């Protein structure tokens, strides 16, 4: 189609003059260049996959994948994980009373750890049937506001509707995600065998991506005097405290750079998800496990309503390995694929033997 353009003129027959054989002089050398590219003769590598070349590959893949898979599986199995559903749907559950409570409600759930948790222990909260990945929800945020942009602070993006303004004042931080910040407080209490108890120290920092806390999220006008910086804005409707009072214990962990807030703002991929809540740092002496086996109580300040959408709330304690949290999938998948490859290798070897012979025989009469 495109090449036909050359003729646009000629077709009309407007051409006059040097059309006849007399014009031969004008055609000097129209001989095509003898270059490898133009003659489609570029040197080329022409691999052919034959049973002979693929066979070793299959065996090698099998031999690599199976150990990796076993390693992954063992690692995953060694990760200790403990999970409590504290939604309180069960009438016997201590948190059942909090379900319909309108005032702040505290409940505590006792549990026992059978095995010691070593190294750093990570405490997650998990929500089910919570659609953080709903489109209306995902886009309901203003990243330039969160990045400390002053004009966006006072004039948030339209995407934040209907959580953009409240009582005529701009909401900071605006949007549905911020408004629905997870606000249950979870505390762990360990009961020594002698019945004395100890509140386990929970670290609030290091739970969000480093780049998020340091670059993507910024307070307007730096970290000092947040009250003044957020003047002229109002807190989201569902929040108890304004954004600059999220963490009364650590002034550096306030405003948009509050790590609980940042973790929440990274929307989950699936409707059932977990988010990192606290880190329990390992003991300095390395002799006693971080969480020794024994009796514990989970103290909950129950604020977050999930019953209305059939949701569930969980608290998860987990150790972490190099591959992350507990997930047997990878190990099983690797073992399976490795075995399949190995098996295929064997099958191919048999086929190859048969075919190879037949091929050779067939060649002779020709």
């Amino acid at each position: 189609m495109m090449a036909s353009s050359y003729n646009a003129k000629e077709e009309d027959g407007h051409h006059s003059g040097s059309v006849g054989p007399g014009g031969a002089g004008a055609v000097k050398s129209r001989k095509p260049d003898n270059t490898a590219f133009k003659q489609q003769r570029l040197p080329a590598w022409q691999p052919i996959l034959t049973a002979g070349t693929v066979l070793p590959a299959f065996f090698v893949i099998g031999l690599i994948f199976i150990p990796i898979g076993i390693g992954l599986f063992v690692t995953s199995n060694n990760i200790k994980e403990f999970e409590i559903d504290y939604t309180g749907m069960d009438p016997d559950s201590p948190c059942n009373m909090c379900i319909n409570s309108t005032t702040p409600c505290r409940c505590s759930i006792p549990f026992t750890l059978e095995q010691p948790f070593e190294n750093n222990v990570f405490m997650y909260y998990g929500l089910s049937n919570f659609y953080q990945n709903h489109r209306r929800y995902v886009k309901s945020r203003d990243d330039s506001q969160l990045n400390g942009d002053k004009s966006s602070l006072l004039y948030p993006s339209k995407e934040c509707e209907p959580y953009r303004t409240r009582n005529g004042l701009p909401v900071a931080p605006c949007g549905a995600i911020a408004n629905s910040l997870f606000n249950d407080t979870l505390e762990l209490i360990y009961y020594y065998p002698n019945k004395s108890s100890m509140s386990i120290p929970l670290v609030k920092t290091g739970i969000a991506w480093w780049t998020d806390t340091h670059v993507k999220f910024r307070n307007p006008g730096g970290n000092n005097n947040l009250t003044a910086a957020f003047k002229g804005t109002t807190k989201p409707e569902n929040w108890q405290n304004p954004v600059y009072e999220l963490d009364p214990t650590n002034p550096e962990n306030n405003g948009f750079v509050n790590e609980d807030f940042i973790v929440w703002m990274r929307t989950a991929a699936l409707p059932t998800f977990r988010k990192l809540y606290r880190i329990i740092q390992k003991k300095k002496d390395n002799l006693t496990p971080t969480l020794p086996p024994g009796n514990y109580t989970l103290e909950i300040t129950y604020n977050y309503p999930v019953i209305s959408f059939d949701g569930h709330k969980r608290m998860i304690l987990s150790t972490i390995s190099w591959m992350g949290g507990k997930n047997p999938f990878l190990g099983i998948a690797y073992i399976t694929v490795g075995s399949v490859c190995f098996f295929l290798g064997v099958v191919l070897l048999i086929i190859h033997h048969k075919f190879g012979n037949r091929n050779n025989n067939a060649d002779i009469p020709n």
Partner: protein
Amino acid sequence: MLRRRLNHLFGGDEKRVDSRTIYVGHRQCPGTEAFIAPKFCDNRIVSSKYTVWNFLPKNLFEQFRRIANFYFLIIFLVQVIVDTPTSPVTSGLPLFFVITVTAIKQGYEDWLRHKADKEVNKYLVTVLEDGRRIRKESERIKVGDVVEVVEDETFPCDLILLQSSRDDDTCFVTTASLDGESNHKTHYTVPDTEKDLESLTATIECEQPQPDLYKFVGRMHIYRSDQDPAVRSLGPENLLLKGATLKNTKKIYGVAVYTGMETKMALNYQGKSQKRSAVEKSINAFLLVYLCILLSKALVCTTLKYVWQSRDGQDEPWYNQKTQKEKDAYKFLKMFTDFLSFMVLFNFIIPVSMYVTVEMQKFLGSFFITWDKDFFDPEIQEGALVNTSDLNEELGQVEYVFTDKTGTLTQNNMEFIECCIDGFQYKNRDSCSELDSFCVTDGPVSKLHEKAGREKEELFLRALCLCHTVQVKEAGDMETVSEDQIDGLLPPTEQQKGFIASSPDEVALVMGAMKYGFTFLGLDSKTMKIRNRQNDVELYELLHVLNFDPVRRRMSVIVRSKAGETLLFCKGADSSIFPRVRSEEVDRIRVHVERNATEGYRTLCVAYKQLCTEEYVEVDAKLREARLALQDREEKLMAVYNQVETGMSLIGATAVEDRLQEEAAETMEALQEAGIKVWVLTGDKMETAKSTCYACRLFQRGTELLELTVRTLEDGGRKREERLHELLLEYHKKAVQDAPPAKLGVRRSWVTASQEYGFIIDGATLSLVLNSSPEASSTRYKSLFLQICQNCTAVLCCRMAPLQKAQIVKMVKNSKGSPITLSIGDGANDVSMILEAHVGIGIKGKEGRQAVRNSDYAIPKLKHLKKLLLAHGHLYYVRIAHLVQYFFYKNLCFILPQFLYQFFCGYSQQPLYDAAYLTMYNICFTSMPILAYSLLEQHIAIESLMDTASLYREVAKNATLRWGPFLYWTTLGIFHGLLFFFGVRCLFSNPALQDNGQVFGNWSYGTIVFTVLVFTVTLKLALDTRHWTWINHLVIWGSLAFYVFFSFFWGGIIWPFLQQQRLYFVFANMLSSVSAWLVIILLILLSLLPEILVLVLRKPRGPHRRQVAAVTPLSYKNLKERD
């Protein structure tokens, strides 16, 4: 073109009259009613499509008439109007790009046309007006103007020649730019017009404009003050066509009869109809399937969304309230916009980029044909020419080749071989080059074996010298050159070039006569000069030329010798001469003619007749009368010709060899081996054509010929139609029913013992088959005929008129299974079939450029057809087929995870991938490797393709674009899509994937899927690539590297223009997770595993697979050595 249509509309009342009256010089004529200036269109040529004002709307309108463009426009508008998950930029940008590029290209082409139009329209011409010579612009010429044209100028409109500066009232023109014939044609002035054009008062009555270049009938009434108006007939020889060039004549005057868009040239200009390739049809079919997939996906999602929302608390949970506007929206409108949103979200499944890539592949790919040095012919210093790049892949799909004989299979380089005078054979043993003209005249006896009487010999040679329309090419100004000077000026070697004729046979005959001592010196004011053996110049007055036409198949001249004898010489095909001469003469010569014909020579018979004075007067009167006729002139002339050319006596026959083209036989053999059926369509006679077929090995020794010609029809002595019916049934039984079921397998049929059939039919019988009277049997004959032909290895159709050639092509084209046809020819008579066939190929031969101009591809020689089809065609087909399948595949597995994600995000149209990835996927990440593949892939080396023609059968019948392979690719796409999505889904059952316990969100999910996707589809292509040049390496690994680089870059900066920094450090964080790495590697490997298995297991299958494999592995070393 619109203008032309308008002219037709407005010219409606004019059209009712079959002729127009033109007043020469706008002078009123006595005897006519009041002078009404007739309205004709002006002399403006408009070939451009657009003006500055209407370019934008018109061009846009035309572009959006293409279904695909329109679809993308709709998607874009939906994105603008409705709140959709992806920004309008994602589909607007590519669309804008495509539209702009096309508009620029078309605008540029139109600008060129404008320029050309302007050049023609503003050209200054001289017009005689009231005795003054006025220069005016060409576009202002009106019908009736007397125009002056000087040498080497083109005629500004169609003119009737009134006066020439030459003494003999002729002028020479060349019509090279009209029909490509570069020889000089002689045109004549209207007889008896006055020298003083000022006082000429005349009207011209002629037919309404019609496109046939060679037809014109008119009448001129010349009014003189003292006499009755004289009437002169006008024919094509008086008409000078716009676009032709005046040659060898100082200047002429002519009166404009047709102007502007009514000139024959403008009427002949027609935009070539757009040919569409089978691949394009496949694409459209696949597109429809994908459109259905798209619609059903959107429908499923919309339905499920409302089902899901109807459950309590799901539609609007407390944490995710709707805006007031959304709450107010009317429910059904909302459902509709939801549907549209899903459409937009999934619309990437039909990629706008595929159209761009396909166009680019075709455009760039066609350069390889022009660049191929094997197509370069040193003789004409030209290579192949690509007129359209739309049909590249069609070259790999050809099932029927229709070839012309003369000039295509044969060289159209005629050589006089022998003659037969009065039953005696004269064979010239010397080759032409050794011949010296002076030598011949000195010793003619040695060359001719004195067998026939000397008188007969000389009569025969004189006939050869006189009975033709050959011109002697002028060496200088002919009027001043005397005979002696001609001798001196034309050395014998150059004499070969010295003759110009419309048919090379005539030149060969004149040259042949020259060898035997009779030289034609030229035609000068109706006097033909020949030099006889005694070196004397004989003069003959040329009285009439009874032109050659394909129906009569003969031509005659009537000359008067110095002695006053009036002689008629006639030469023509044996079948047309034999009935017109005495039968006892025929018997002596027929043997020779038939022997010559079977040897592949073109034979002509020569006869003569002496006319006595009375006879001549009668003939002369009749001829003049017929020439003056305004109505049915052709028929009347024909009748007179037939009447005159009777009762002649046969003097001899000639044999002219038309040599086969280089490698014609090898080419034909290769085509047949490739499973292509070759049909020879020729205007030549059966015996000659048959022998050419044998020479080309189209018919083999063992081939049984099924003849269906006038001769076989008349054998039975019964009615033709009955016999035809009988024969058809008999042949059908032989070739179709008794033949073993034809296997379309890889096996070459000659290996099998089954009988091969060749079929021969001639024009007359063909028209009987196609147009026999009862309606019912006609279609029956046609289908019988087709079935027979389809089971024959070669078909020869002889005595074909150009239109019949096209008819045959059309018949085969529309037959069952609609096979792909290819026509190849070199002359103007092949244009109709070149235009009719799916692919038209022109040969840059001797018969002008018309075939080349109307063709889709032009090659210098027939032998190039082999490489064009077997190598280029095969490769192009495989490349584009793979390109199309791959595009659909990669977009299916691109969009399927996005569709599946809807089930996990509450059917909220949340995109899985970031907008940047959505846009860039088809533009940057995966487009270059497939483009490089589709330009460079040689799954089988070109040498093997050429050596093993049967490989062509592997891709026959659109093999890789049928539903089977399409299903395979679709399944593969679905498999990959499912694997990508659910693999990552399983991984994300615990989103704590980093070794510091931190979790991944939805954008990380999408990025992991996308990474697996990009790597898999690229590596899948790498697996398919059989021919890795450095370009392939560069683009494949480069694309992957670019993806990684881009992802880092895109996630590495807080982009101020973005509303959301979704991907900020997502990619880097993903790479810091071991699990992500492991899952990416696992999924890529798992998706490619079946592919690898298929590749390995498929290889050793079929007997010649092995052969292919044996030839294919060319190492670097081999290639380098060859260069």
